[in-house]
């Protein structure tokens, strides 16, 4: 009898997640990254747009170990010297790469979060309505099929072509692109939940549709929604950096990770770190969200595996 206690499912899930070492590492990386991005002005004294022509294209801290400091020695080149304070070096305009990564992260992560939330809000609503009201099922899901019929990033591009190139439109485009994934998954889950006995019980007690839908069905779909949102966050980050790389994201001098990679193209020969630094940052962030999503799925909703 002592085992019958009210357990908080949320707390159980968090405990399970914290027992997984890989998931904890990813969580820590993401939290540190988000904090660094938020408190960017406290971490770096440089501004993302501040140009210093005297220190263009300098390498980062790693150059200290190999650099030739003696001006008399052969192979000495002042332009290959590390400038203290510019930890990750400077770009073609003499702007601090570390500052640009931090401020660029503000854009990438904000667009990622907002577009995922927008997609979640609309997608989950559509999915719930389609599952709960059989009359709405066909029209809603056929529209979702239509949105799904645009492969890859094509739909986002069509929306950007329609609205014009700027960061808000890019966010909207990525949001619309993620609606059908949310709608489909939530519909599937909600259809299962709808058939449960407790829903029938609630209904026979006289609960209204809105109460059943939002109080009971939505709550039971939450694990699924959390898992999909984490994974969509990874795809949104890939999309925003890809669209920025293609010149459909931010307006210069505003930095963004994908845009930094695109700008580094011409310096590929002499300063590859300009490509690799933002590249590694994007990759690590996306991998962390994907692994976290993977582990959350194993804990919260293993049925999503296929």
């Amino acid at each position, binding site marked *: 009898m002592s085992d019958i206690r009210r357990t908080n499912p949320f707390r159980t899930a968090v405990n399970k997640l914290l027992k997984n070492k890989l998931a904890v590492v990813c969580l820590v990386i993401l939290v540190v990254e988000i904090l660094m991005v938020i408190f960017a002005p406290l971490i770096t004294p440089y501004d993302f747009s501040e140009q210093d022509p005297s220190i263009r294209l300098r390498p980062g801290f790693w150059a200290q170990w190999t650099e030739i400091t003696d001006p008399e020695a052969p192979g000495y080149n002042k332009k290959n010297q590390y400038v203290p304070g510019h930890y990750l070096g400077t770009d073609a305009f003499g702007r601090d790469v570390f500052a640009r990564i931090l401020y660029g992260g503000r854009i990438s992560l904000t667009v990622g979060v907002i577009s995922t939330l927008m997609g979640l809000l609309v997608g989950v609503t559509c999915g719930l309505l389609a599952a709960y009201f059989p009359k709405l099922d066909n029209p809603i899901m*056929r529209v979702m*099929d*239509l949105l799904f*019929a*645009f*492969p*890859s*990033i*094509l739909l986002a*591009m*069509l*929306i*950007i*072509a*329609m*609205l*014009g*190139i700027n960061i808000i439109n890019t966010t909207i485009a990525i949001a619309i692109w993620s609606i059908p994934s949310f709608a489909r998954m939530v519909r599937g889950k909600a259809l299962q939940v709808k058939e449960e006995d407790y829903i029938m019980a609630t209904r026979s007690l006289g609960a209204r549709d809105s109460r059943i839908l939002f109080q009971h069905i939505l709550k039971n779909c939450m694990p699924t929604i959390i898992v999909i949102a984490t994974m969509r966050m*990874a795809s949104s980050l*890939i999309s925003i*950096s*890809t669209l920025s*790389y*293609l*010149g*459909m994201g931010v307006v210069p001098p505003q930095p963004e990770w*994908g845009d930094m*990679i695109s700008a580094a*193209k011409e310096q*590929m*020969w002499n300063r*590859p770190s300009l*490509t*690799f630094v933002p*590249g590694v940052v*994007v*990759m690590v962030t*996306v*991998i962390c969200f*994907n*692994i976290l999503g*993977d582990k959350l799925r194993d804990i919260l909703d293993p049925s999503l*595996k*296929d």
Partner: protein
Amino acid sequence: MARSICKRIALMFLLLIGMSFLVFASLYIAPGDPASMVAGPSATEEDIANIRVSLGLDKPFLVQYFMYLKRLVHLDLGMSYTSRQPILSELLVRLPHTLNLACAAMIISVFLGVPAGILTALHKDSFIDNFLTTSSLILLSIPNFLLGVILMYFFGVKFKLLPVGGMEHFFWTPEGFREAILPAFALATGTMASFIRLGRSAMLDVMQTDYIRTAKSKGLKRGAIIFGHAFRNALIPLVTQFGTSFGGLLGGAIITEQVFVINGIGTYLINGIRNYNYPVVQSTVLLIAAMFILINLIVDILYCVIDPRIKLQG
């Protein structure tokens, strides 16, 4: 079966019509006046008004849409605002480049992804399994363009083993093969990862079936069980994945073409978006989406030919 195939084809047409409507409507509400774009910068007000009437732009929205559909049926995709050439011929010149890239990527992802997936299933929970499953997650997490840039740096710039860009020849020719390796690999990783994951779960499912147990108890050799019985059945779910993946590769090719400077329809689309060249954007988006739908239809039909147990639904 013939009935369900007909139904499927009818549905495909509905989807195509819905899609053409979506594409038409989205660019109808886009800012900018098509008549003045067609007329060019030196045109007078009167010229623009004349062109507007001759293009039917003064008509109501639905009438314009039906005129657009009618032109589509006659394969008249309109003129490009910038080059003043018919879009259809411009697309046909570029399409082979994109298909060349997408097919090369498909071959890489199938021939590396499927065996890797099956290998992981046969050695479940071993080092190989963990290694390949983790790498597939990492492959899924690298944006295509980033992998392209990284590959280009190491193989093209640093070690100078392969050309850094351009795909002028088909990938089965010797020059084309060298040109294709980097872009096709950069494009293929995502698809390859999904083949690894799906191949693994399909093979695991098959290995648990009764007929595999029977084969084992008959004393068949492991090789005969895997290749004679399990592998063929595990391929069935992979066929559906093939259709979705090819669409994904066509969409992904838009990005890879930009990285490796390949003059395919993706480059055409992106230039169209940058120059507000709406007819180009419309036609390219519609072409890619239509190819995607068509491939899925073919795969669906193939699917029920391969496995008669499955009936087409919908």
